[in-house]
């Protein structure tokens, strides 16, 4: 194996060995391509057409993992961690996935995400790295991004929290009822309940699984802690807008949702934790002034990072690289007219309507160096 092949093998290992989902999706695709096409098209339908069952959600998660893998390979190519043309084995597999009619409709029409689209263009040979030629830190930035993102990929708790935000309600097997984000916020307001849910571990439960509420509380903590670190990495990549934007797009769906309606909910969660201070005596507050102040400072930093990441400012670089080449005017229109959030995967909108999105006001935090005027882009 040469260096590129070894590097590719490591990325593939992370998605196909450490998670079974991507491999299962590939098998399902093989089966579909050898005859059962209708089944795959039905599985990868838009949720407005027919609600998605729990079993289908799990099967679709496999395709999300597969597309995440292709997105990560695309970022590796942009960062010059991998060559502009990935190994031949990958190219064959990627073309088979990305050109499949049902899969393509899934990532282009129903839930448009840009990284797989960019990767398909790369497979066609019409996408080149432009801003990283001669930039030596690309592989290092990719390495750091992969290291930062992988634990998030494997965290079921963060996934649960985000899906709760996204879907509104999920069933909790311990409470035997639907729980919502309000239930999570109620737990965050009550220190004793918070401690129980934040400390719960799956093996302790008779079911062997954490409750949705416990997962949501732990996922909330993990997600808000992740945000400042991702923002710091994106700022570090400010010299390379395409790489910066590609890394943002990897998690872009969630930041998009944050911008649309979740930012306020997450802020409510952080404010609920602020409220614990009211339970302390004046003496305790004085005695622990520095720790309280440090914790408060971290929450402010997390809130600012979440606001910044969900503002959509990082979405332009990748969108632009696609727009400048070939018949991609519709993406350009989508991004420029509807705002950056249009590059995200909408879950609740109809196929034939564009989302109306207002950019949130700029928070009082450091500005990233990427400054593209939508009027002139």
């Amino acid at each position, binding site marked *: 194996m040469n260096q590129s092949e070894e590097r590719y093998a490591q990325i593939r290992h992370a998605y196909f060995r450490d998670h079974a989902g991507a491999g299962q999706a590939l098998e399902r695709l093989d089966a579909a391509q050898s005859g059962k096409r209708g089944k795959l098209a039905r599985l990868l339908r838009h949720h407005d057409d027919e609600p998605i069952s729990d079993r289908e959600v799990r099967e679709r998660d496999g395709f999300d993992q597969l597309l995440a893998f292709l997105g990560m390979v695309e970022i590796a190519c942009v960062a010059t961690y991998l060559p502009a043309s990935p190994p031949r084995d990958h190219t064959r597999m990627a073309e088979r996935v990305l050109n499949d009619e049902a899969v393509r409709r899934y990532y282009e029409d129903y839930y448009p995400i840009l990284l797989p689209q960019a990767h398909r263009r790369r497979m066609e040979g019409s996408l080149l790295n432009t801003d990283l030629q001669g930039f030596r830190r690309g592989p290092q930035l990719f390495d750091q991004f992969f290291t930062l993102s992988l*634990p998030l990929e494997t965290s079921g708790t963060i996934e649960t929290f985000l899906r709760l935000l996204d879907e509104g309600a999920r069933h909790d097997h311990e409470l035997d009822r639907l729980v919502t984000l309000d239930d999570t916020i109620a737990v965050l307001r009550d220190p004793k309940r918070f401690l129980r849910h934040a400390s719960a571990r799956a093996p302790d439960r008779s079911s062997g699984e954490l409750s949705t509420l416990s997962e949501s509380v732990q996922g909330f903590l993990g997600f808000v802690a992740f945000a400042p670190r991702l923002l710091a990495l994106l700022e570090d990549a400010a010299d390379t807008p395409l790489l910066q934007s590609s890394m943002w797009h990897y998690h872009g769906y969630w930041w998009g949702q944050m911008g649309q309606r979740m930012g306020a909910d997450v802020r409510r969660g952080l404010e609920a934790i602020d409220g614990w201070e009211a339970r302390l005596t004046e003496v305790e507050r004085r005695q622990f002034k520095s720790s309280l102040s440090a914790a408060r400072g971290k929450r402010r930093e997390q809130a600012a990072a979440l606001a910044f990441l969900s503002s959509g400012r990082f979405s332009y670089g990748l969108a632009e690289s696609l727009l400048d080449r070939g018949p991609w005017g519709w993406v350009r229109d989508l991004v420029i007219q509807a705002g950056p959030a249009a590059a995200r995967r909408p879950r609740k909108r109809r196929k034939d309507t564009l989302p109306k999105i207002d950019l949130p006001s700029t928070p009082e935090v450091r500005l990233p160096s990427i400054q593209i005027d939508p009027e002139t882009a």
Partner: protein
Amino acid sequence: MHHNLLTTMRRADASPWGAEHKTRLAMAAKPKGAMVFVHGFRGHAVETWHEFPGLLPLEAKAASYDLLFYGYDTRQQAPFSAAKLATFLTALAQSPAVEVVNPSMAFGLPERPATFQYEHIVIAAHSLGAVVARLALLQAVDANGDPAPWLSRVRLALFAPAHSGATVVALIALLMSGAPLKGQVEAVARRLYKSINDVETGSPTLKEMRKATRDLLRSHAQVASCHRAWVAHGEDDYIVSARQFVKDQPTTAIDQADHFDVCKPTAKKREPMDFLLGVLP
């Protein structure tokens, strides 16, 4: 970069060592050492160390070290966690290629020979992790009950170790986002986190650990040299006592760092990185 990407740490039978355990294996054909990271109270195998997993592979001095991120349930009593860590360290010291490295490697990458051994094992531990690591090393004995010979290859690098005791109310503040809540919250915390009793200042666990370490350093000075740890404390740490533990090296003070930050280097704040690199042989 001198290391492979982050992967799940696996046993010889390919099952994961733990839900959180991860590795970054050195690209060198025969690395001279391993760095084992052991997180602290309510920490996480990888995330506790923030940028360490991403920045260490850029350091030339770390190029010949495999990076192993070990996770454990911090609610358990420290001696139980130590027993599990001792099992892992024994496998790592005696048969690293078969028990840890080769099963964790991406398919197709060159495997290490079964006879491969590390010259050095550096354990980097934070807070409660320091107590767990010290207890694990005390539990590592051979068939005769003597300290395991591989201990002579081990060094300890401890960030804000809780080996001289921690304030319980401050530990609860750590659990509760800085708020030192007492009463029912403290009762729930003590019930859920049995390890609190182990690291409370003056606890029987800490007293016994201190005595066992002192005895071992007297009876098996060479093998037990691993117990002469390198220690770093943050100047703003209000949780653990910075008192010297038995015959540890003189303490390194890290400016403007609290209990949480002391083990988290950034591109701009290198002190935790420099401290750890300074411990490498």
